[in-house]
């Protein structure tokens, strides 16, 4: 089956080469970072996590969202998703690989990574995050591969796979819950110290992940000649709509609690920093208003049944959801947690060029994995479709 990845059009190969180039650039920047230290990034003693950990957090959500296909299909028999659950599972695989890479590039001493296994520390949530992320990666590789292989051989998937599929449902919830706990359990980081964090993470994950899937389905239809079907896309659009409404509602809850209570240490200062600036520091303000604009646009296009049904407007809505939540979670959440610092000073963060290139390199690596996996899926699907007709 793997051999299918080695066949493809010129456009396919062009895309692969492009990704390899971006990976190469990112990797050389990473070698430089290894040599010089994290001084080549924009992080500081005050904002000690930045773009890398932001991407990690965002992508855990994308990975978890595969459950939004698996759960309806296997538990509620939503037939439309039958053709595309494997797309969700392979998206999860690619996203988790990116997550792990982002953690690695963020480490000061990556060669000591194994210390997490050599000295397991169950009181650390990072330890549990490692456990659940790797477990989820494995689950999705096994499930995705066997489901696809069964389709390839035109047999039904092995029976032992079912329990694993059921297991993957709570497991998906666990990866994003544990990731939220990384943040929500820290004293003194007011913006993160909220019981809503895990719920917020899950809601935004179930919006951004399926939104990305809709975009990917469109790309597959347009460029790979594989149509997941309008019904499946519309079902996904419904999920995105509800999840986006809940996400925006949760953000509004945070804003209410912070600003009505007027307790500075209830995230008020961080939210001020994000939306209006704090003590003259306004680095995130433009981004956050783009977030507001994109969220509003997405909600209008999604809630209105006519625009949700029309392909063009749905794509715009999904792009907006993805962009908005990338800003909110991949940038704002992490940075604002460090602002103000423990001394109530504001020191701002902006990523450096090498940092951005390394980030792009990791994204390209994830896209490469995704492209190869989807290439195989499409080839198998096309063949089995022919087989069915013939």
């Amino acid at each position, binding site marked *: 089956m793997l051999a299918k990845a080695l066949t493809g059009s010129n456009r396919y190969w062009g895309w692969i080469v492009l990704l390899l180039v971006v990976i190469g650039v990112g990797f050389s920047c990473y070698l430089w970072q290894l040599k010089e230290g994290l001084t080549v990034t924009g992080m500081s*003693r005050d904002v000690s996590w930045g773009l890398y950990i932001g991407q990690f957090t965002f992508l855990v959500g994308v990975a978890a969202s595969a459950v939004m296909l698996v759960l309806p299909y296997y538990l509620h028999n939503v037939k439309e998703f039958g053709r595309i659950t494997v797309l969700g599972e392979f998206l999860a695989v690619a996203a988790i690989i990116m997550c792990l890479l982002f953690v690695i590039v963020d480490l000061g001493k990556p060669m000591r990574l194994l210390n*997490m296994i050599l000295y397991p520390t169950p009181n650390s949530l990072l330890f549990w995050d490692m456990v659940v992320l790797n477990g989820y990666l494995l689950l999705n590789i096994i499930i995705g591969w066997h489901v696809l292989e069964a389709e390839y051989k035109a047999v039904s998937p092995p029976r032992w796979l079912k329990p694993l599929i059921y297991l993957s449902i709570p497991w998906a919830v666990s990866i994003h819950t544990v990731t939220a706990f990384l943040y929500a359990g820290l004293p003194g980081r007011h913006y993160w110290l909220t019981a809503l964090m895990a719920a917020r993470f899950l809601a935004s994950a179930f919006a951004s992940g399926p939104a990305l899937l809709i975009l990917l389905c469109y790309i597959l239809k347009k460029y790979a000649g594989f149509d997941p079907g309008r019904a499946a896309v519309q079902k996904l659009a419904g999920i995105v709509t509800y999840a986006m409404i809940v996400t925006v509602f949760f953000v509004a809850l945070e804003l209410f609690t912070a600003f009505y209570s007027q307790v500075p240490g209830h995230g008020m200062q961080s939210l001020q920093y994000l939306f209006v600036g704090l003590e003259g520091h306004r680095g995130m303000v433009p981004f956050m208003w783009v977030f507001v604009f994109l969220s509003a646009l997405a909600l209008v296009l999604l809630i209105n049944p006519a625009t949700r049904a029309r392909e063009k407007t749905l794509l715009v809505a999904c792009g907006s959801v993805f962009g908005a939540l990338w800003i909110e979670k991949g940038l704002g959440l992490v940075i604002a947690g460090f602002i103000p610092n423990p001394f109530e000073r504001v020191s701002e963060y902006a990523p450096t060029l090498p940092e951005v290139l390394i980030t792009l390199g990791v994204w390209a690596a994830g896209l490469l994995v995704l492209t190869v996996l989807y290439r195989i899926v499409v080839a198998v699907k096309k063949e089995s479709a022919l087989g069915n007709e013939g």
Partner: protein
Amino acid sequence: MKIGAVGGLGLVFLPAVKGFAGSGALRDAAGAGSAVGRKWAMVVDMQKCWERGAECRDCILACHRAHNVPEIPDPEEEVKWVWTERFEHAFPEQVHEYLAEHLRDKPFLVLCNHCENPPCVRVCPTKATFKGDGGLVMMDYHRCLGCRYCMAACPYGARSFNFRDPRPYLRELNPAFPTREKGVVEKCNFCTERLEEGLPPACVEACPAKALVFGDLDDPSSEVRRILSASYTIVRKPELGTRPKVYYVINPGLGNSGGR
């Protein structure tokens, strides 16, 4: 090169504070070594410190020299174990607009609080940060991954990350203490290495005003306990439940300053 060689020697401080004889109470800082400390703490009397004048940096210099703390010019990447902050920054939740001037504009010494309930220890995925004997919050520079989770967890900004190789930024080298590599976190260790030899922390020893007092909280007759029972003292951010063990005498003249 020499620095590198030193850095390669035994960098790991074990938690065992082995140098103490098991008898006697710790009465004053200079006698730190004569007791088994089960709960080390520091009391900072800022009034005494200020009487020396704002230029005095003896404690900071002594600490940073003893521990090979680099002088990195970029404030964003600074490494520091002990330094000063104005009241409003050291105690941000305890300021108000009309705070007495003698508090507001004065520097307060800040360092790792060696919290009784340390969040940095709770989050570290490798036990590179751990609680050792005497309640000291310690670090193993050989095990640290540089994930910086502990920096996010510490509510006191007490931790520094080596964003670059610190060795070129050392003025002088203390061969008795390890240097660090780039990519690991570090912080005040309450001079574990000196406590092992029965010496008080370097900052305590260096302070010409005797403003820093070090001792055992579990010993009711220790000087730290005596000051704590006689003076109004505060700790940083008590509301977070970390239970810091660096105390600040706030209003001198209310019982403690005449007593010594």
